[in-house]
């Protein structure tokens, strides 16, 4: 394929993917599945006919993409909401993942008759829920969940990948060096965990310092800085033998909680990047699989998927959440939001690159499990939530009429104030009212319309003013607005 044609194909695929997301929203099919489907169609077995079997490239791309997705996920996480669910989420992300891997491994060994090591390896690969999938499904417009289920599920999915990565790498190590004692993996795990968390935190602090101190000449460079920072955090942590995924998620969480300059624009930018990465990753993984090779594993794949969905995940959830107060219905729903996604597929390339046997079988099997999970669970979460009666009215996302970022070093607030009935201010131009200098009417809401106020704008009774002001000036402004047209006689 010529260079231009390749570019053209790539561009068309990305554009079509984005536009089709609108369709998937309507039919309730998770968007990411659609991207995966497009990748498969573009691939060798589909009409696209692109031959791609470079597992190493897919893995690198998947890793980078996942780093950005986790970072954006952390950034958008409502830390106040998350704080209450830290302990159950950690239980799910560690013990839960471990139990899922173990139970799935057991099942594969006994049901399908694979050898122990291989069965446990597959169990480990599919043991974590997928942040990209869970974020995408829970943040889509179709799902509303009662508190604190959503923050719990998001935090779990954002923080459980390191455990799965670790278990997978550990199993590969055990297969390659059969003499190695299992317990030798424990320090390795702790090291990954601690270095990941610590570096993630430090890198976030460091970033805040830099962005608040350095005055870059071009506004557009700030997002670029963040782009580099995510990769830096991941790579540095991985190089120091910590969990890079955990680190970038942690960095995102800390940055999401703190305020710093350019935060709003940065969140928007990273949200866009996360979408792009999701598209790229799922397209690539779609390209990497050969659907014709999936058919032979369909029977086994379905069996393992059902085992995972109906036995391993619920068992892991119910055991992990024993010390916490969740109702049966809530645990039922948490079990159901055990979406697998790109992480298992990326992890399934690990054994390939490690030169183990049977790797294509493992890859195809894992791929099939993931698709079954996303199709079966991803499309039915709203239904399950209703059945378990843990659904909540949907949040309707609207755009802000104006955006407000608290500027550094200024004590300003944005308050809505009424123009009371009988106010002297009604009927006067804003200019005439003598508002203090640092007190700005940013927007007037009147008659289902927003009015951009100018000095000559005349206020009316019942107007709602969106006022930007310091606390002291706000009191002055209120006095002006609340002054009555005619003074009542005393005692009247």
């Amino acid at each position, binding site marked *: 394929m010529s260079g231009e044609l390749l570019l053209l194909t790539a561009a068309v695929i990305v554009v079509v993917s984005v536009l089709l997301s609108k369709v998937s929203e309507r039919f309730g099919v998770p968007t990411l599945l659609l991207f995966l489907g497009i990748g498969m169609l573009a691939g060798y077995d589909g009409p696209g006919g692109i031959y791609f079997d470079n597992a190493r490239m897919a893995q690198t791309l998947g890793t980078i993409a996942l780093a950005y997705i986790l970072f954006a996920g952390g950034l958008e996480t409502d830390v106040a909401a998350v704080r209450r669910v830290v302990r159950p989420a950690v239980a799910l992300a560690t013990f839960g993942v471990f139990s899922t891997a173990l139970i799935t491994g057991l099942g594969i060994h006994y049901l399908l008759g694979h050898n122990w090591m291989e069965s446990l390896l597959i169990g480990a690969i599919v043991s974590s829920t997928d942040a990209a999938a869970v974020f995408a499904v829970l943040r889509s417009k179709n799902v509303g969940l009662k508190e604190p289920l959503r923050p719990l599920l998001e935090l779990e999915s954002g923080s459980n990948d390191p455990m799965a990565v670790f278990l997978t790498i550990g199993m590969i190590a055990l297969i390659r060096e059969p003499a190695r004692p299992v317990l030798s993996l424990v320090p390795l795990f702790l090291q990954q965990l601690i270095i990941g968390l610590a570096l993630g935190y430090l890198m976030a602090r460091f970033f805040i310092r830099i962005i608040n101190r350095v005055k870059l000449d071009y506004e557009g460079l700030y997002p670029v800085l963040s782009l580099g920072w995510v990769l830096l955090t991941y790579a540095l942590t991985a190089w120091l033998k910590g969990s890079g995924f955990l680190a970038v998620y942690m960095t995102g969480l800390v940055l999401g909680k703190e305020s710093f300059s350019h935060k709003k624009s940065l969140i928007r930018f990273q949200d866009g990047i996360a979408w792009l990465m999701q598209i790229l990753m799922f397209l690539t993984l779609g390209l990497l699989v050969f659907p014709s090779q999936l058919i032979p594993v369909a029977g086994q794949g379905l069996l393992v998927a059902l085992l995972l969905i109906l036995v391993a995940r619920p068992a892991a959830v119910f055991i992990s959440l024993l010390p916490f107060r969740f109702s049966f219905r809530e645990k039922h729903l948490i079990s159901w939001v055990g979406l697998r996604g790109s992480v298992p597929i990326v992890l399934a390339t690990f054994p390939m690159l490690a030169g183990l046997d049977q790797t294509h079988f493992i890859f195809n099997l894992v791929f099939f499990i993931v698709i079954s999970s996303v199709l079966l669970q991803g499309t039915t979460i709203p239904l399950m939530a209703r059945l378990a009666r843990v659904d909540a009215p949907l949040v309707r*996302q*609207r755009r*802000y009429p104006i955006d407000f970022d608290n500027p550094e070093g200024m004590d300003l607030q944005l308050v809505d104030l009424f123009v009371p009935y009988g106010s002297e201010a009604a009927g006067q131009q804003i200019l005439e009212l003598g508002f203090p200098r640092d007190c700005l009417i940013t927007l007037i809401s009147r008659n289902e319309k927003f009015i951009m106020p100018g000095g000559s704008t005349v206020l009316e009774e*019942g107007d*709602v003013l969106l006022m930007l002001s310091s606390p002291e000036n706000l009191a002055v402004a209120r006095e002006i607005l609340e002054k009555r047209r005619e003074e009542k006689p005393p005692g009247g």
Partner: protein
Amino acid sequence: MRLLEYINKNAIFLDIEVHDKNEAISEIVESMAKAHLIQNAEEFKKEVYERERLGSTGIGKGIAIPHARTRAVNRLVIAFARLKEGVDFGAEDDDPVRLIFLLGTPVDTVGDYLKILAKLSRLLKEDLLRKRLLKAKTGKEVLELLEEAEGQNC
């Protein structure tokens, strides 16, 4: 954007007996929680009080529209309460407040709720509507009055 989309018939409380502004807000919020319209009554109360601290939402003529952006709701909700005895809301005209519209809106939506606030304050400017709201016998009647007023206003 219709008011009736946001006012639930279970969120109309007629002739509640309270002694002051804070008790009024507290009563309405508790009743909303009982009707499962909001999730965290304590948090919501605090946020409404906080907004009142910045400036009274008593807009005169016996009307108050307390409100807050809050995580206690998933969508914009409006409750209506008529007090048996008027209370002082700190409005400049000193008319005791008997008609209260209490709004809660999710933190991430601003536009709709600014429009609803303006719409309420505009509708309630009409003497006739206020008089009729004071006389309404049932929640259903309140809803009908608001719907009618809104229809005429458009």
